[in-house]
C-alpha cells in the first residue's frame, strides 16, 4: 500500500473546484433539521479545538 499522502483520497469525490461532493451528497441525504444539528456539533468541536489550542499556546508562554 502506498504511503504517499500527497495523493488525493480515491474514496472522496472532489469536483474541479476542490469541493468534496461525497460530503455534499451526505448533507443532502439529511433533513434540514439534521443538517443544522450536525452543524452545531461540528461548531462545538471546532470551538473546543480552538480553546485547546489557545490553552496550549498560553501554557508555552
Amino acid at each position, binding site marked *: 500500500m502506498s504511503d504517499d499522502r500527497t495523493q488525493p483520497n480515491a474514496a472522496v469525490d472532489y*469536483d474541479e*473546484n*476542490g*469541493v*468534496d*461532493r461525497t*460530503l*455534499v*451528497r*451526505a*448533507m*443532502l441525504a*439529511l*433533513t*434540514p*433539521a439534521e*443538517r*443544522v*444539528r450536525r*452543524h*452545531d456539533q*461540528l*461548531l*462545538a468541536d*471546532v*470551538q473546543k479545538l480552538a480553546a485547546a489550542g489557545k490553552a496550549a499556546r498560553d501554557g508555552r508562554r
Partner: protein
Amino acid sequence: MADARLIDLLRVLRAHEVDFIVVGGMAAVIGGAPIVTQDVDVLRANTPENVERLLAALDELDAVFRGDDRRLRPVASHLTGPGYLLLATKLGVLDLLGSVEDATRYEDLLADSSWIELDGFSVRVLSLPRLLEIKRKLKRPKDQLMALQIEAVIDEQRRQRER
C-alpha cells in the same frame, strides 16, 4: 462560552413570532452545504410590531453587542434602520441584518425564500440560487469559498432530479 446551539437560537426567534429570513452561512447549511459557520445571519422585518417581538426574543436570548465589555443590550432604535447588529447570545452568535446587498430588505426577499421545517418549528430560509447570487457579488475569500460550495449543492440537486 457554552456550546452554540444555533437551532435553538432560531427556535426562540420563531417562538416570539419574529419575522425574519435566514440568510448567509446558515441558509447554506440548511440547504445542504457542508460548511461550518460561527453565526446565524437573519434579515429582519423592520415593522414596529416586529421590532417589539424581536426585542422580547433578544431579551430571552440575553443578547448583547459583541466585542463590547459593557454588555450593552440592543434597544428599539437599533432595530429600525437598514444597518446590522452583531450580537452575542446565550445560544450563539447572531447577526441581525436590516438589509443585504445594497438595499435589499426583508420584503424584497420574501419571494426568494421558503418555509423550511426544522425541529418542530419552521423558519423562512433564502433559496440557494438567490444566496449564490449574493455571495458571488461579495469579494471576500470566505464568500467566494461558500459560493463554490453552494454551486456544488445546486449541481448535486440537479443531478439527483435527473436520475
